[in-house]
């Protein structure tokens, strides 16, 4: 039986099948490649970004487009996997010939696409991922960050904690890049802002851990003024849910990441009085444009509200369009120059990008949860908007991190 290595025939058939299913495409105008976790772990977050970006695309195109043509977005699913993301990004560059890339979501996908943007010289605008590593440690001229990254957020949290005067603090950081860096920056910055404050204990739940009861008892044993929980999604949800029975909110304060989709999924399970931080909470935006956008979004999607990633996605489209218009071409060097030279009117207010690390002075939003009559879920009230200018790392820090990354 020689058949056991007769794999040539089916292989050929398979190749032909793939070949006929997919083919090269061509289009005129500005072409934006979107790579993001449409399915996989990010699926629950990014759908709103996509809807928002489509609204922005329609608006821009019906106002005449940019550079004399319409904006076209090619949607690709990274499945929230770094390997799939890097593959899709390369295909967008090689066969779709996109002028620039945007999207991402998980920081691993961002880190996977980042060197590809550099390798092929295609600008990459992060809309949904907050790692600072892509623009700082491994930064290059083509990568742009439009939301507050980890270093900025850590500093904003320290700023807020100092304003509140909390002294004894337990940190609970998910044991991976985001959790570790945020806790580290928070600790360092708080020591500068409020020398009296001290971290009494550091806890490191594993990512994906949802039974947090023994972390809660360990944290409460210290009788802290604050539990700083660098967690998100199911981690945050489980912490709040399980904390209730221990009287967590009566015995201490809780500060944690609460973007809009958490409010939507937990609903009334989120008690009043949690300190939450977010990157683009629609209900806290005061610009007229923001109110118009939310109304438009709701009208188009059965009254659903956009989450933070929707706000960030909408903003990134107008940033791209504005910069292209000013640059007068899709040439990356001209684009970068335009980005550095102008102010952008975004839903989150007027923002600027600095050129040392292509990072926008994006604000962080920190407030206290409360059930109001305005929405079917709790939202943050008394929102502190901590401007990016206050939290951007200085140039020495940026250079030091870049040197260390080369090591």
């Amino acid at each position: 039986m020689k058949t056991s290595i007769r794999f040539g025939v089916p292989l050929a058939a398979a190749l032909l099948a793939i070949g006929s299913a997919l083919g090269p495409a061509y289009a005129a105008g500005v072409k934006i490649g979107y790579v993001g976790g449409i399915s996989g772990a990010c699926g629950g977050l990014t759908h709103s970004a996509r809807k928002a970006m489509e609204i922005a695309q329609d608006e821009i195109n019906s106002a005449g487009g940019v550079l004399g043509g319409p904006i076209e977005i090619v949607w690709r699913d990274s499945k929230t996997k770094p390997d799939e993301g890097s593959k899709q990004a390369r295909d967008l560059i090689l066969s779709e010939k996109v002028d620039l890339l945007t999207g991402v979501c998980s920081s691993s996908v961002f880190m996977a696409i980042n060197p590809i943007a550099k390798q092929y010289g295609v600008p990459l605008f992060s809309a949904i991922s907050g790692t600072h590593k892509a623009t700082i440690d491994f930064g290059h001229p083509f990568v742009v960050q439009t939301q507050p990254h980890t270093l900025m957020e850590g500093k904003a949290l320290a700023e807020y904690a100092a304003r509140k005067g909390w002294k004894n603090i337990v940190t609970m950081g998910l044991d991976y890049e985001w959790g570790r860096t945020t806790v580290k920056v928070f600790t360092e910055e708080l020591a500068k802002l409020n020398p009296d404050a001290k971290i009494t204990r550091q806890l490191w739940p594993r990512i994906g851990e949802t039974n947090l009861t023994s972390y809660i008892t360990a944290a409460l044993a210290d009788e802290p003024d604050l539990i700083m929980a660098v967690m998100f999604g199911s981690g945050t949800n489980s912490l709040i849910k399980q904390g209730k029975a221990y009287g967590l909110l009566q015995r201490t304060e809780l500060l944690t990441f609460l973007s809009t989709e958490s409010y939507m999924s937990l609903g009334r399970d989120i008690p009043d009085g949690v300190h939450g931080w977010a990157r683009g909470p629609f209900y806290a935006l005061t610009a007229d444009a923001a109110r118009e956008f939310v109304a438009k979004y709701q009208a188009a999607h059965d009254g659903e509200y956009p989450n933070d990633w929707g706000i960030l996605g909408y903003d990134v489209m107008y940033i791209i369009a504005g910069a292209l218009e000013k640059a007068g071409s899709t040439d990356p060097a001209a684009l970068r120059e335009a980005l550095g030279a102008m102010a952008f009117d975004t839903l989150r207010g007027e923002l600027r990008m600095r050129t040392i690390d292509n990072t926008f002075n994006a604000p962080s939003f920190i407030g206290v949860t409360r059930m109001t009559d305005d929405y079917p879920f709790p939202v943050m009230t008394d929102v502190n908007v901590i401007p990016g200018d206050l939290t951007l790392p200085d140039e020495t820090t940026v250079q030091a991190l870049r040197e260390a990354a080369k090591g």
Partner: protein
Amino acid sequence: MAAEHRRGNASWSIDWRLVAATFVLVAIALHLSPPLVAFAIIEVMIFALYASALNLLLSYSGMVSFGHAVYFGLGAYGLAITIAKFGWPMWAGVVAGPLVSAFFGLVYGALCVQLTAIYAAMLTLACAEITFAIVFQWFDFTGGDSGISGHVPAMMGLSPAWFGMVVLVVVTICILALWRVVHAPLGLTIRAVGENPVRAAAMGHGRKRVQLAAFVISAFLSGVAGTLYGIFHGNVFPEYVGVLFTIDGLVMVLLGGLYSFGAGIYGAIVYKLLDNVMAHYFEYWQLVIGVILVLVVLVSPAGIAGLVSTVAARLRGRAG
């Protein structure tokens, strides 16, 4: 049925015409395809090697690995860490990748062959989880969940077609080598042990030593696949060592058909075809894989390989 298949490999010689035809065909397809299709072909080839290496354990040596992604992923980590952290030249990193995998195959394998059946499989799982935890948590060395990227240009800076050629050559050599292993004296011993350890022991073959040899070979070839994957994407992440890549490999082999040499190859083709094509139209393509697996059990325990050989035999019968 299964036993029949085990003894069914009557021909040990390589059908060179077939190998050459396949090689030429794939090479042509690579050059005619747009990038995304070329990427899919490259993925199929890399995973065909990975799944074939795993198949050496499953089909021939009577072992199940619930953590084979470790040897795949460590190949990519061996490449990345030696280049990015130790400053080695690229060629040295390429050599180091599979050797790192083989080394861990030796260490873990030596432990796992002390046990048998499900107990050994559970030990492979424990080893894999420990490795994953270390890779994920040792930030300074492995980059943690941010991985390592940019240490090599993706696809070595080649075009998809020409990088595909490199992969094609390497994978062909490795799979031919695996064929030799399975059909050489060592392979016969491995199979004897896999089928009936007691009888093999009576013939003087120590089960543990033979299974360890198979384990190391499998780990090494998985490492070659992982190293290629690391170059293909120009990065490495803990996912490559993780449970999803392990399940991918297992599903490919089981889909392809146990106790046949081609299992990994057929399985990789079908699995990656669905992953790359069907996933665009139907989000729930893994459900389809699940249904196919059920059908495999109920209709054709020898998997796709079994179906192919049945059809081929009928065709030949008709032609003859």
